[in-house]
């Protein structure tokens, strides 16, 4: 081991401790964020407790009553809806890029999809407000409403005035943002399938689609799942893409055309306006809930991805 002999040099000792310190900054940040958020939200934790805060729909700065449920509900609904819309497209893109596309198109289309991931979220948000939202309110939402009118449950989901500033529009924007993340991880997982295994399936007479469905997909299952959970973690914390078109309405939405609030949107809109201590503490409490939620989700995703990597890239 070179490190042992090198440790004798004082400059080396200094340099190595400097690098060590820098890398421990990561741990410091995570512990620091957790500690500060808990400390700052203590007044709210003491006043509202944990379960009462998480399951209360109250959000009334005037009466100083705060609960997280409307925000958590909005976060979960937009996240789930956007994943539902993003996953099929992302998997399709991954299949296209690994199996269908001619070789000369793989590079350009792959890059184009990844550029979609590089666009800042505020651009998605603004585009959503000025371009997508009018399209949703004038074309897509009335169409969906007419389509589902009279159908018991679906009709209810699409009831209300289609304003374009609602859960559905936010989820569509969020799904466009999630597509490239999910697609690039799925593509990388698909690429891990050894060519020999695919070729043996072809040799048995399988069609291209059967190879994808029965060989590539099962092989990449773990990685794809990890990618989906990773997108879920990202969606939970996305702020600017939804801040423009969600409406920041603290009520449990009953229709996809209702304005709603997510944890991130509430923070973005109200953090600088919070004038009472308990209000600010409740917002910190919300941030804490979001941090814990997304940290756990991301850790689970990472676990799956690591496992997939270990299993297949031997």
């Amino acid at each position: 081991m070179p490190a042992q002999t090198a440790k004798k040099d004082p400059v080396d000792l200094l340099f190595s401790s400097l690098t060590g310190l820098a890398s421990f900054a990561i741990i410091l940040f995570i512990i620091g964020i957790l500690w500060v958020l808990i400390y700052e939200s203590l007044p709210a934790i003491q006043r509202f407790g944990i379960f009462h805060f998480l399951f209360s729909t109250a959000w009334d700065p005037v009466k100083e009553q705060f609960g997280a449920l409307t925000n958590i509900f909005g976060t979960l609904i937009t996240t789930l809806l956007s994943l539902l819309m993003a996953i099929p497209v992302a998997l399709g893109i991954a299949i296209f890029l690994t199996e269908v596309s001619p070789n000369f198109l793989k590079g350009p289309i792959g890059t184009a999809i990844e550029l979609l991931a590089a666009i800042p979220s505020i651009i998605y948000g603004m585009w959503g407000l000025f371009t997508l939202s009018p399209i949703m309110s004038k074309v897509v939402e009335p169409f969906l409403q007419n389509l589902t009118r009279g159908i018991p449950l679906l009709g209810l989901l699409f009831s209300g005035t289609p304003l374009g500033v609602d859960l559905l529009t936010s989820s569509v924007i969020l799904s466009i943002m999630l597509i490239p993340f999910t697609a690039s991880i799925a593509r990388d997982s698909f690429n891990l399938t050894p060519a020999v295994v695919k070729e043996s399936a072809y040799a048995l007479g399988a069609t291209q689609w059967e190879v994808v469905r029965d060989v590539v997909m099962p092989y990449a299952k773990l990685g794809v799942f990890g990618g989906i959970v990773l997108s879920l973690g990202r969606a939970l914390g996305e702020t600017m893409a939804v801040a423009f078109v969600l409406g920041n309405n603290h009520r449990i939405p009953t229709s996809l055309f209702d304005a709603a609030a997510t944890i991130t949107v509430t923070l973005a809109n109200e953090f600088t306006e919070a004038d009472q201590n308990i209000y600010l503490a409740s917002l910190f409490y919300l941030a804490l809930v979001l941090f814990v939620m997304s940290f756990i989700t991301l850790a689970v995703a990472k676990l799956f991805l690591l496992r997939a990597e270990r299993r297949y890239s031997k």
Partner: protein
Amino acid sequence: MILETRRKFSGAIALSLSTLAALTGLFWLVFILGDVLYQGLSALSLDLVFQDPVPAGVAGGGLRNAFVGQMLITFTATLIGIPVGILGGTFLAEYAHGKMISRIISVLSDIMVSVPSIVIGTFIYAVLVRPAGHFNGWAGAVALAIIMIPVVLRTTENMLLLVPWTLREAAFALGAPYYKVITQVVYRGAATGILTGILLSIARVAGETAPLLFTSFNNSFFSSDMNGPMASLTVSIFQYAMGPYDNWHAQAWAASFLITFFILLLTIAGRLIIKWRYHS
């Protein structure tokens, strides 16, 4: 025979659906970029960069304050984030190579990369804004640096690991201490890779809005004082787009255009460098 036609038929359907999916992805890209390009270009003028904002509702004016603020904040963030990121990555790839702690920090920084940036904003608010008593540019820069560090750290680690061990051993054999091996041999071997990481991390933070909302806040006047509230392009875009005035919207589009293409340029440059250096 019927079974075979059916298999071929379902295969054709599935694969055309996947092509359709790829087209959908491309459609969104073209739609969004085209819109930003069209709306941005039609609102773009020199005033945007060289004029300060005028009172709301009055025509004219620009976002010079936001451009300067954005540059100062991003630049300061880079000054903090890049050394820490590179040193941290060095520790993981060199001194702690193969050790448990290296794996743990790697995983944690991968998680940190995706932690909601607005949470980092609230954290910095509690740590740097409230004690100072006012919003300030430093706080914004530190918030961006915290987002930047894990990105730079992970790329540095990966790029250093690509440098062959035999190269280090050759330097050790000449009697060089480890720090000299790292700074003079390993860093040189990985320089382009690290540069790419830096470019991509700048691209990553240049479009961040959420962590600036309650750290550097906003300022309608020109200010180069990092100790006071500072305008940034992204926060200005948010404010202007949500505002009621048409010329605000136009300026928001123009600013979005500039920021989007700056970021895409960095991203493409980063990808080209990787391709040129590691795949040819």
